[in-house]
């Protein structure tokens, strides 16, 4: 069932991989693959966060700015302000969770549309980051090698010589397993899926829908915060005006490609990861062939649109088929 839902996107992903291989011999080089995996893992983490919000029928446009806030905030606290590592990490985590809590409360208590709340967030958090850094690039310089290995580290695999697994993949794997377990095996995951499909029916079944919605936004912002930290650890420097720009769109696109309906409800974590991988592979393909750099967004947009249209057509066909079958069964006595 889960596999069937993500079959289309998985096939598309492989098709893009094969196409890229044929266009550039560098694609399958271990250096490129490691980079691609690292990017996929980083984007996968923030995409899973966004998927939680989309499951509830909401949207979070502030993800890229939260990435910026935590990505600039951590080096700024550590190097400029001289905070200790544990307190700086704690501060970043608390701010990220606080942002999600704020979004959730504004949306559920005051009834403001998620789009509006998180649009304001999109502007505010980057602005704040540019403010406290004085719009100057922040980074770790030569320090914090141990910490940075969380993102830059490579895990040697047995029997494979020149390829190592980038460390962020481990983060992604753990988060994905936890997220899938939460959504499919716990009652709270079930509540999230139910309220995403029908908030009212969930409320009439005694589910505290407000509380669950807030939880989804907190998860989203926390994963965005974690993503920001990993991004900055990976590249070592962060420029407040640029860090995390448009990442919310990559994350939303990955979640949608992965089968999340913006009307809420459906989700498979595996699909979201494949979605993120597809986006990064497309970018990689464009970089490698390097003839159409400036066409990046056009190509990604077109692929996203094609994927969504194909998905909708498939869904319609399924519904029609099922309806006909249901009717046939109804008219014959049980």
């Amino acid at each position, binding site marked *: 069932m889960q596999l069937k839902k993500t079959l289309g996107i998985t096939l598309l992903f492989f098709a893009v991989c094969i196409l890229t291989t044929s266009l550039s011999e560098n694609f399958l080089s271990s250096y490129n693959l490691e980079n691609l995996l690292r990017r996929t893992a980083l984007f996968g983490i923030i995409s899973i966060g966004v998927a939680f919000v989309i499951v509830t029928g909401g949207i979070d446009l502030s993800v890229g700015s939260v990435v910026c806030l935590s990505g600039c905030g951590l080096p700024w606290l550590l190097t400029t302000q001289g905070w200790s590592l544990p307190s700086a990490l704690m501060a970043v985590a608390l701010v990220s969770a606080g942002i999600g809590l704020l979004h959730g409360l504004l949306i559920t208590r005051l009834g403001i549309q998620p789009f509006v709340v998180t649009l304001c967030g999109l502007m505010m958090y980057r602005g704040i980051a540019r403010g406290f850094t004085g719009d100057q690039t922040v980074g770790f310089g030569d320090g914090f090698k141990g910490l940075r290995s969380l993102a830059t580290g490579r895990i040697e695999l047995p029997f494979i010589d020149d390829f190592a697994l980038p460390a962020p993949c481990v983060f992604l794997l753990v988060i994905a397993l936890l997220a899938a377990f939460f959504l499919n095996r716990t009652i*709270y995951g079930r509540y999230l899926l*139910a309220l995403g*499909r029908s908030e009212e029916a969930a*409320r009439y*079944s*005694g589910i*505290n829908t407000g509380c669950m919605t807030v939880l989804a936004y907190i998860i989203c912002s926390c994963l965005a915060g974690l993503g920001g930290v990993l991004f900055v650890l990976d590249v070592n420097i962060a420029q407040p005006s640029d860090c995390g720009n448009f990442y919310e769109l990559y994350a939303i696109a990955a979640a949608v490609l992965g089968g999340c309906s913006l009307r809420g409800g459906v989700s498979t974590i595996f699909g979201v990861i494949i979605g993120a991988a597809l986006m990064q592979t497309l970018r990689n393909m464009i970089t490698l062939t390097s003839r159409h750099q400036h066409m990046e967004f056009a190509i990604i947009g077109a692929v996203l649109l094609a994927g969504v249209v194909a998905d909708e057509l498939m869904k319609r066909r399924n*519904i029609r088929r099922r*309806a006909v079958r*249901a009717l046939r069964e109804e008219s014959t006595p049980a």
Partner: protein
Amino acid sequence: MDISAPLLEARNLVKTFPGVRALKGVSLTLHRGEVLAVIGENGGGKSTLMKSLAGVQPADSGEILIDGRPAEVASVPDALARGIALIHQELNLADNLDIAANLFLGREKSRFGTIDKPAQYRAARPLLEAVGLDADPAALVSTLCIGQQQQVEIAKALSLNARIIIMDEPTSSLTTRESEKLFKVIRDLRSKGVGIVYISHRLVEVMDLADRVTVLRDGANAGNLEKSEISHEAMVRFMVGRDVSRFYPQKSGKLGDPVLEADDLRSPAHPQHGLNFTIRAGEIVGLSGLVGSGRTEMMQTLFGITPATGGRLRISGNSLVPQTPMEAINVGIALVPEDRKKQGVVLEMAVSENLSLASLRRDQNAALINRRAENDLCSEMIGKLRIKTPGGKQPAQFLSGGNQQKVVLGKWLAMRPRVLLLDEPTRGIDIGAKQEIYQLMEQLAADGVAILFVSSEMEELLGMADRVLVMHEGRMAGELAGIGLSEESVMHLATGGCHSTSKSTCN
């Protein structure tokens, strides 16, 4: 034009929705200057038939003839071009615009590309006069009461030169006075040769107004009555298709202790009226009243959706005014809500997931879903309630209305409620499932559950309830039982009349 041919003739209309065959070959004939009443139980196919005739949801097959000639009615503009106008149960007016703007919506009178308001106002006046609406065409629709808004709708139909006007339950939210005004308009239109299809389940109105009656049952023609044949008994016989007294299960009659006691309970919708009533274990109490009388609001207050603003509530002797549905559920209250598809089931979720939605919290250890318990519950309820589904994994949206409602009931049966609230439990479901739901209600009552149900169907109310509470404009207008309980006495209270033997005072 063939004058002898009927104005409108529908032959063998069939309309299918996912999971339901709403029309199974329905025919009707309407002549000029005639009021044809179309009646039938909810779910009988009346509204679907009207939507097919007006092009809102064209029929899958069948023929529509106007003046004896085949006419294609594939869309609303088609229908309007052929002189067919539908006046919906829910009015379709833009209430932020004035009356004239609504009348000419989509075909504004313009000068140099701008709307010519004076011309619209001039053109609106005779139309409003024709429907007996004494209002300024420049008045905002939001300032009109429901009855007046309906008159605007009719005026709009007239402005389109409609020769066939279909009215879907036009009096469902009108007061008696407003209804009488409407009847006068309808008689005027009739005398001008307009054909009117009048859908209602208020049989008293039908006897008063109709020249002929067509009865639908289960999406098919159940019978036709000429003027001389129209009587209450004849209509009910066709509608129900069997003897009414045997349609509803026998009552057991044993009543236990009070389970639900409301004392001066105030719902946020009508905080000025405190509600008082008691329901005993094993009792089935009906709640009647016109649309907007506060019935649904009271149910939602009892269930904690819109928490009470004042008063006391006792459940099995314990005082508690639920502030959330969860609190209500915890003390044993369950609500089968009015809007099944929005509030009752999660359409895209599987039957099994819908059935377990309320009981997950209680049944599962820690936060994990126990798949086996969920499946057991599912097969138990599918068997017990005879839910027709290919399996527990089927999404609820592919079930028929009656089976969806059984899923909602199953969800609450799993919670073993002490108080079962049902808001229009049989709206839009077929007659077989209806009877099963009635039997289930009786059986639950026999097991000691206190049941309160809202119904707009008089037959159902009188057939099922031991006692009927009647609401009018947010207050409890009275309580009827035994010999004092009749269609007339309920309607009398529901429309604001006083009842000499009612317990509540009327002031």
